[in-house]
C-alpha cells in the first residue's frame, strides 16, 4: 500500500495523469469526429461558427452600409471569433459530464477505471479546443481576406498573444472544470447550464460590443468576468490600434492585464480542483454518478 502513495508510486501510476489526458483527448476527438467522413465533418466544424460570424457581419453591414474599415467592426468580429474558444473549452469540459453520464452512460465505468477524473474531463475538453482552434482560425482568416479586418501579421505582438492565449485557455478549462463539477450535482437541468453560462458571458464580457454600451448598473459585471480581460489582451496583441479606440481597460497596461489574467487563472485552477473534490464527494454520497434523467 505504501508503495502506491507519494514518491513511492510505481512508474506506471506516476504517469496516470498524462495517460488519462492523452486517452481522454483521443476519445473526445473520436466522439466528435467519427460520425461522419472527414469532409462532412470539416464542413460541420466550420459552418456553425462562420454562420454566427456572418450574422454579425450582415447586421453590421445593414446599419453602416458596409463600413468594414471602422475599428468597431474589427472589435466585434475578432471578439466573436475568439469567443468560440469560450463555448468550445468551457462548455466542452463541462458537457463531458452530460455526455458520459446521460448519453453514453459511461461515467460510472470511468470512475472505476484507473484514471484521474478531473484530468479526464480536461482531456475531453482538449478535443473541443482543437476543433475550436480550427473554427477560430477559419473565422479570422475569412475576416481578413473578405472583410478587411485590419490584421497585419508583422504587427502582431506574438509573445503577448501566445502568453495571453495559453493563460486564457487554461483559465477557461478550469472554469469548465468548476462548471462540470457542479453539473455532477445537477440532475434535471444540467444540459442547460453550459449554454446559460456561455450566453451570459457572451453578453457581459464585452465580446461583441464595448462594456460601455451596457447600462451603467450592469457594467461592473463585465469587470469581474475574467474573460473580459482575456479578450482585451487578445485584441491588444492582434490589433493594438483597434483596441486603443475603445478605452474600456485603458487604465491597465499590458503587464497589469497579464498579471490579472495570470492571477485569475491560478485562482480558477485551485478552485477547479477544490470544487471538483467537493462535488465529486457529494455526487458519490447522493448516488448521482449513475443517475439518468433522459435530459
Amino acid at each position, binding site marked *: 500500500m505504501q508503495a502506491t502513495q507519494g514518491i513511492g508510486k510505481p512508474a506506471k501510476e506516476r504517469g496516470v495523469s498524462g495517460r488519462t489526458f492523452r486517452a481522454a483527448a483521443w476519445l473526445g476527438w473520436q466522439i466528435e469526429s467519427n460520425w461522419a467522413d472527414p469532409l462532412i465533418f470539416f464542413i460541420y466544424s466550420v459552418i456553425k461558427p462562420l454562420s454566427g460570424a456572418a450574422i454579425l457581419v450582415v*447586421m453590421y453591414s445593414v446599419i453602416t452600409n458596409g463600413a468594414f474599415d471602422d475599428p468597431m467592426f474589427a472589435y466585434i468580429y475578432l471578439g466573436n471569433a475568439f469567443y468560440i474558444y469560450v463555448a468550445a473549452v468551457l462548455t466542452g469540459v463541462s458537457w463531458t459530464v452530460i455526455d458520459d453520464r446521460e448519453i453514453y452512460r459511461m461515467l460510472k465505468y470511468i470512475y472505476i477505471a484507473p484514471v484521474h477524473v478531473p484530468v479526464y474531463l480536461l482531456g475531453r475538453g482538449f478535443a473541443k479546443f482543437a476543433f475550436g482552434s480550427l473554427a477560430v482560425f477559419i473565422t479570422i482568416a475569412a475576416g481578413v481576406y473578405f472583410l478587411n479586418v485590419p490584421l497585419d501579421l508583422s504587427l502582431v505582438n506574438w509573445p503577448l498573444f501566445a502568453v495571453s492565449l495559453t493563460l486564457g485557455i487554461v483559465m477557461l478549462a478550469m472554469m469548465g472544470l468548476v462548471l462540470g463539477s457542479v453539473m455532477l450535482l445537477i440532475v434535471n437541468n444540467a444540459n442547460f447550464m453550459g449554454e446559460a453560462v456561455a450566453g451570459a458571458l457572451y453578453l457581459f464580457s464585452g465580446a461583441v460590443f464595448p462594456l460601455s454600451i451596457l447600462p451603467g448598473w450592469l457594467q461592473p459585471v463585465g469587470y469581474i468576468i475574467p474573460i473580459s480581460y482575456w479578450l482585451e489582451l487578445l485584441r491588444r496583441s492582434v490589433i493594438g490600434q483597434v483596441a486603443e479606440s475603445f478605452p474600456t481597460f485603458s487604465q491597465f497596461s499590458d503587464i497589469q492585464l497579464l498579471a490579472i489574467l495570470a492571477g485569475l487563472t491560478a485562482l480558477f485552477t485551485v478552485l477547479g480542483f477544490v470544487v471538483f473534490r467537493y462535488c465529486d464527494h457529494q455526487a458519490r454520497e447522493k448516488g448521482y454518478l449513475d443517475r439518468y434523467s433522459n435530459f
Partner: protein
Amino acid sequence: MTLTDRVPKNSGWRLFLQTVVGRAYPRIIGLLRELSWFFFEVFLPVLSVAAYVFIYRAIGAEDVYIGFVVMGGAMTAFWLNILWSMSSQMYWEKQTGNLALYIMAPNSLMAILLGMAFGGLFSTGLRALVITLAGSLLFNVNFEVSNYLLLFAVFMLTMVALYGMGMMTASLFLLLNREAWHYANLAQEPVYLASGFYFPIKSLDFWVAAGASIIPLTLGMDAMRQLSFSGGAELGFLPVRTELMILVALCVVFLFGARWLLKYMERLAVREGRLTESRR
C-alpha cells in the same frame, strides 16, 4: 373487470384524434411539471436577444431593428422546437425504445406527429410570448400593428407550414442515428442567418433570400415585421399578401409531403431494420 371483458376501443378518425390528444398531452403537461425548463428556454433566448440588441446599439441602429431582434429571438423558440422536439424526436424515441411501440400500436404515425406538433406549438407559443414580453419591456420596443387580422393569419400559416416541415423532416430522421444530433445542431446558426432572425431578410441577396424562403419562418417573420413595426414595410422582402400566398403553398406542400414521406420512410426503415437500432 376480467381479461375477457371487451374494452370499447376507438378506431378510424376517433382513434386518430385520440392519438393526437394523447401525444400532445405530455408536451403541454410537461410544461407545468418542469417549470425550470421553461425558465431556461426563456432565459437563453433573452440572453441572445440582449447581446444582439447591444450590438445594434453599439453601431447606432434605429429602434426598429431592436424590435426585429426581439421578434427574431422569440421565433428562435419555434425553430429550436422544430429541430429538437419535432425533427429529431424520432431519433430520441428510437433511443428510448418508444419508436417500436409507436409503430406496433394500432394508431397512425401521422397522428403522433400531429400531436407532437400541437403540443409543441402550444408550449413553444407560451415561451415565445414570454420572450417577446420580456424583450419588449427590457428594451422598450414599440409595436405598431397595422392589421391584426392579417398578422394573426400570417402567424398561423407560418406555424402550420413550419410544423408541417417539422413533420416532414421527422420522417427523414427515422433513418438517422448519432449523426441526427449533429445535423440538428448544424441547422441552428445557418438558419438563423439564412432566415434573417436578427436582421431584415431583404439585406441578403435576392436569390439567397428567395432560397431561404423554403423555411416558413423566413417569409413569416418578414411579413410579421412589416405588419408590426412602423417602418417595417420599407424593410420588407416581398409584399405581405404575396408572402401570405407563398405561405399557403408551403402549408400544402409540407403537410402532404409529410404524409407521403412518412409512409415511404417508415417502409424503408422497416425494410432496413433501422427502427430499433441504437448507435450512440
